[in-house]
């Protein structure tokens, strides 16, 4: 997919004025938040659980090279193949080589962020290999030619009417906007694909070094299909997804479904260890594990930034982020969105394409509060901002004007009535500001976009009525600066 992350601001503005998208985003936020809260309310000590999950990931990353070696040994022992890919290009080349060697014509795929990261579908298509996304949300966006807009629900930005139109056109079925009928239409179309496919490609939620197992979590059953029916199963995995033991796997299984979709467990949790054994009729004949680096070995060098490798891709941070819930997933212009996306994209994308994303945050900390592995996302965003500023050759400190503006700004923000009063007084001068901007007066250019997205209040009450409240505020403020 075409990376659009450097156009975040522009895309976000478009998203903000799209009232239908805003409605969908509100529902996304509310639904996922409520479900996650309910799922964690059942847990005796949620903070202790998150601490345990954090410890599992910390320990895994601290031992990463040794665990990867152990994982490789165990996977080979159960008859699988392990391939190491330094970058996207190499990963795709490896997969295509496996496909060509086995004369694969059609592939069925489970939802996998990492395969989007490497642009696998495009690479396969270029080699004349048919790829079918089988997760319903991914199937929908594949038909629509769009990237995913949310880690857990990639097509949640679409209304059922849009999906109805899409299916009636692309699947050649009579128009229906009933989700049940649409889902059954997808089930029928994909069932054929599952049975005919030569190869199934999935990601991996985790891999257990101790046993050489790949763990896959889902609700629909499409991932089970991809890893059971076709004769070849390829699992693509970022190197950071390996965990040490079965106990560690169990800990992460306690937090991942709860955090992602408010479920105690997803409908299907698959623990796959190698290929079909001699006396078995179902399961793949060949199993390949692709271990992807793609700059993760860079990220791990920094002891603070390393934390982003703990991410288990639950999407909880997206669902509470005030920026994501207004801008929507597509504004982030790539595979990963929301707070974790802002960090990862800035680190994984080349040529500073992700440079706007660490600034796409209010640093409110809601993401840090919900993260099941307690990643300090705001801290990582600040570190990235500093880095980006340094790269641009800017001074590490801030200038006098900025300092003054921040001081005035913080004093005004702490006094609501004063803020209201000042906001309403901007209405008349805003026209003047436009004129000044046109004349190229410095600094005005920054105020205009800020002003454009806001409706300034009118001073409904006469000033005389507002004054007592304002006076009290200013007086109180003098004693607490």
């Amino acid at each position: 997919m075409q990376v659009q992350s450097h156009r975040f601001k522009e895309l976000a503005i478009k998203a903000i004025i799209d009232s239908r998208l805003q409605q969908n985003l509100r529902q996304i936020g509310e639904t996922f938040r409520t479900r996650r809260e309910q799922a964690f309310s059942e847990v005796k000590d949620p903070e202790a659980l998150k601490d345990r999950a954090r410890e599992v990931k910390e320990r895994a990353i601290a031992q990463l090279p040794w665990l990867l070696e152990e994982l490789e040994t165990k996977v080979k022992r159960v008859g699988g193949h392990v391939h190491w890919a330094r970058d996207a290009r190499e990963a795709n080349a490896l997969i295509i080589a496996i496909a060509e060697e086995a004369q694969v014509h059609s592939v069925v795929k489970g939802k996998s962020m990492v395969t989007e990261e490497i642009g696998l579908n495009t690479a396969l298509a270029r080699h004349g290999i048919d790829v079918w996304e089988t997760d319903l949300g991914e199937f929908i966006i594949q038909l629509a030619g769009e990237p995913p807009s949310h880690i857990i629900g990639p097509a949640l930005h679409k209304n059922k009417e849009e999906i109805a139109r899409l299916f009636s056109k692309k699947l050649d079925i009579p128009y229906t906007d009933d989700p049940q009928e649409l889902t059954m239409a997808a089930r029928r179309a994909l069932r054929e694909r599952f049975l005919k496919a030569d190869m199934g490609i999935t990601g991996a939620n985790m891999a257990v070094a101790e046993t050489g197992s790949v763990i896959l979590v889902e609700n629909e059953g499409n991932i089970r299909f991809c890893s059971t029916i076709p004769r070849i199963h390829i699992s693509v995995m970022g190197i950071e997804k390996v965990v040490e033991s079965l106990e560690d796997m169990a800990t992460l299984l306690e937090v991942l479904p709860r955090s992602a979709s408010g479920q105690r467990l997803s409908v299907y949790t698959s623990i796959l260890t190698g290929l079909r054994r001699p006396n078995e009729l179902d399961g793949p004949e060949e199993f390949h594990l692709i271990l992807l680096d793609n700059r993760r070995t860079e990220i791990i060098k920094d002891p603070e930034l390393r934390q982003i490798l703990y991410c288990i891709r639950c999407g909880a941070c997206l669902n509470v982020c005030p920026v994501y819930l207004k801008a929507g997933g597509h504004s982030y212009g790539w595979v990963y969105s929301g707070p974790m996306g802002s960090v990862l994209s800035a680190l994984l994308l080349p040529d500073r394409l992700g440079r706007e994303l660490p600034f796409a945050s209010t640093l409110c900390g809601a993401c840090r509060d919900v993260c099941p592995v307690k990643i300090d996302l705001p801290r990582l965003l600040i570190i990235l901002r500093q880095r980006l500023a340094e790269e641009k050759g800017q001074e590490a400190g801030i200038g006098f004007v900025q300092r003054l503006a921040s001081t005035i700004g913080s004093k005004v923000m702490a006094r609501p009535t004063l803020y209201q009063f000042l906001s309403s007084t901007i209405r008349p001068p805003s026209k003047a500001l436009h004129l000044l901007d046109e004349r190229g007066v410095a600094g005005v250019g920054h105020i205009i976009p800020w002003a454009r997205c806001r409706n300034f209040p009118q001073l409904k009450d006469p000033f005389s009525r507002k004054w007592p409240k304002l006076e009290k505020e200013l007086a109180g403020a003098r004693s607490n600066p």
Partner: protein
Amino acid sequence: MNRRSREIILNRLKSALPHRPSKAEAATKALEPQWLDITTSWEPLLDKLTSLSAVVRIARAKEEVKNFLENLTKKNQVRKAILSSAPFLERTGVGQILQEMDVMVQKASHKRSDFIEACSQAELGVTSAQAIVDESGSLILRAPQGSERAISLLPPIHLAVIEAKNRVAHVSDLVGMLRRWEAESPEGMLPSAVYLITGPSRTADIEFTLVLGAHGPKALYVLILDY
């Protein structure tokens, strides 16, 4: 070519992490799950299964099994069923009972293509289950046990038959089970596939509307044998 990538990746990691942290005192690894006594209340489990839209019955006599299967086959107009060849399932006589209800019962054959074809044609897939989890209402299935991977996936209805004594309290009990299977296997390996199944297949990808049977079974029936 790939050996080079392997070395490069591992070297980069080892230069960023020069010392492997010494292993903390390893907690005793679980070797056995904690099986629940059959007298422990079944209410919480039954509630969980119902809330997941699964249909469950504890059968205390063969008559109840017949009754349950009759309802299942009538309600879903089952004409063809595919049965796993797990020895436990043979002993329960479920296959015979279904045949007596005029259901065409097929067993997992030896030829893979025939087997997959049979799974595609059947309305009902019947498997055993190794355990049922109180905490989540999950069933634990494993390969090979008579090819239960495809049987519990392709047909639109999945019936899992399990003994009442095979109940565990927590999902984490799965770990003890996995270790036991690993220890029992001659090569010291885990089974090729182990599944935790928690309800019938579902999706909410279209406007959060819950739809059952996205790809896997639309309906999950659980028959717990207590006799």
